[in-house]
């Protein structure tokens, strides 16, 4: 008997597949993660209720999600923007650390008029993040050196610098812990009244709108999209790939830097050894989920914020290792790229002989029985 699997390239992706893909990826990732929960003897239904429904219980718990979402939106944009130009900013974590370090340093050491404190801190963090991305960006633009490897190496270096600083020159507070002293009150981002969410969220939302406008309404955005979809054709059309690579990656770094300081000045109040639970890596599935538009990326960031809040809840309540978050986010990527195959190709399986010669033959499996 012949099982014939035929793969046809689609001319157009049906809209239900395009819209359903992110939802499918999340659902499939959560379904497979059940295995990890069952393996350690945790009731998966109870765990998912705790993770995804309980955080909506009160205004306070909802605002926890918004607090988590703030750095994730910013660092998600930091991966999204270069991704639009065809670059993978896998080392956003390092740019986030650079922004956090410099922003914290300014907050603690620089005396400024009250009105200028927060703007200067934001500016300093953005510049630090941008600078941290600059060398990988230049190496990619000028020499074609993989930005994936270089941004990651810069992340490892940033992590070592951070550890050095919080144990050495920037160490502060009582008890000799690896952390800085608390930020002065003037540097703390004010809370949005009635919630724990802070103005960083407003800044993040503002930047989402700015990115939307610049990507969809300006010549710069047009260039980025063109280079991202076909760099060679863009080059032939007279666009500078060099400038687009440099600008998007450095801007991405600046946004990641803002994510770093917003987590410190808005939430944790001081820089310490492990303040960033891998937001920079979470930014990758966020950007991928939202690759078709910045507002979808915003939704993806909110989902992962919920995952972080819910993940912490099951860690405390059910002793589920917090790495469940890492597993879910890796699986989301896995199912996204699996689903993309079905966006591009139509699969038809027919049992028995069928040979119309029109389609691309994928593979033939012959069974003996």
């Amino acid at each position, binding site marked *: 008997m012949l099982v014939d699997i035929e793969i046809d390239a689609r001319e157009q992706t049906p809209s239900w597949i395009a819209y359903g893909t992110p939802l499918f990826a999340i659902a499939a990732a959560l379904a497979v993660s059940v295995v*990890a929960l069952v*393996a350690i003897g945790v009731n998966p239904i109870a765990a998912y209720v705790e993770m995804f429904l309980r955080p909506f219980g009160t205004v306070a718990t909802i605002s926890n999600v918004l607090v988590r979402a703030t750095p994730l939106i910013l660092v998600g944009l930091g991966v999204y923007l270069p991704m639009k130009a065809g670059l993978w900013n896998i080392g956003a974590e390092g740019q986030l650390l650079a922004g956090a370090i410099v922003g914290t340093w300014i907050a603690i050491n620089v005396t400024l008029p009250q009105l200028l404190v927060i703007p200067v801190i934001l500016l300093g963090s953005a510049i630090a993040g941008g600078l941290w991305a600059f060398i990988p960006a230049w190496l990619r633009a000028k*020499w074609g050196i993989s930005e994936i490897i*270089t941004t990651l190496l810069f992340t*490892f270096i940033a992590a070592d610098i951070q550890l050095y600083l919080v144990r050495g020159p920037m160490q502060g507070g009582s008890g000799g812990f690896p952390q800085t002293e608390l930020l002065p009150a003037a540097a703390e981002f004010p809370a949005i009244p009635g919630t724990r969410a802070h103005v960083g969220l407003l800044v993040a939302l503002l930047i989402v709108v700015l990115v939307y406008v610049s990507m969809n309404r300006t010549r710069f955005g047009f260039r980025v999209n063109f280079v991202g979809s076909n760099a060679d054709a863009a080059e032939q059309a007279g666009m500078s790939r060099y400038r687009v690579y440099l600008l998007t990656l450095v801007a991405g770094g600046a946004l990641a830097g803002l994510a770093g300081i917003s987590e410190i000045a808005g939430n944790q109040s001081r820089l310490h050894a492990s303040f960033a639970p891998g937001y920079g890596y979470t930014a990758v599935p966020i950007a991928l989920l939202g690759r078709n538009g910045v507002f979808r990326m915003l939704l993806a960031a909110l989902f992962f914020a919920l995952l972080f809040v819910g993940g912490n809840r099951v860690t405390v309540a059910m002793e589920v290792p917090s790495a469940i978050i890492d597993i879910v986010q*890796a699986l989301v990527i896995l199912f996204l790229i699996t689903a993309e195959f079905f966006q591009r190709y139509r699969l038809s399986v027919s049992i028995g002989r069928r040979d119309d010669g029109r389609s691309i033959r994928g*593979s033939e499996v012959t069974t003996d029985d």
Partner: protein
Amino acid sequence: MTDASFLIGLADATVSASTVLILAGLGELISERAGILNLGVEGMILVGALSGVVATVMTGSYWIGFAVGSICGLLTATIHAFLCISLKADQAISGIMLTLLGTGVTTYFGQQWASAQFTGFPDRTLPVIGGLLVEIPLLGPTVFEGPATDFIALGLVVAVWWLLTRTNLGLEMISVGEDPETADTMGIDVFRMRYLAVLIGGLLAGAAGAHLSLAFNGIWTNNIAAGQGWIAVALVIFARWRPGRLLVGAYLFALFNSLRLRSQSLDLALGPESPLAGLLNPVIEFLLNPAIMSMYPYIVTLVVLVATIVLRRDDDSAQPAALVQAYSREAD
């Protein structure tokens, strides 16, 4: 501590530390030669390291642990092979996913194994000629005495070189990485050959991980690979996709890794009588700070990577021509 014994210790540590880079680097080299970039090396190392420890604790045999670790690395690579070869997914993002998945899964299940006690690979010498070789001053105890996995890695450098340059299988593998259309016309099964290369890559990355936990560290800790998988990826570029150069590169990177662990015993500060002591000693102290030293391997990787690419000759075509390109029959 005398300078001579410091150098011997450093050389010894360098050779030991290079094994994980050699194994993982060879695996990545084979995969890339067939046209598939696998950025999941870090994840596969972690899976190999944890599964190796679990199997060793359960069976009491570090050889079984090493085999299980290698096979689990291979199984992890199967995901990448399926996504990139069959589903033609973006190789970069699939590999990154594999690293995130490997890190997540091993951290999730690894907690309970962090304090597990087991007997790992003992240091030994080669059979028959080993006793003589160890007598060679400096080189002897450095190169010819170590865990069995060290010797396996060195043997594999030769084996991979032989495979890629002297066997039909190797030449076919290279041909699907250079020009899959032509290879297909010549009757080579491109898909099968690429699968084989990616799976061998996973096997070797798993072996690298099992070596790391069973022979080098003798214990499982979360994130035991600590970025070495990424260094292995960079190493393949530095090596211009050649096993011999990979060995040289692995020693270079391992040297900087060992320098950090060994330098605590070293006092490089200038004496108070030196006129530059006031100026230079703080600098030396800063450069020898363990936190600062731990970034040296990454800095060296960066510098060497950049130098390799910037200084390449224009006619150089070491990189497999079809690297990162998915293959479809009858191009669409």
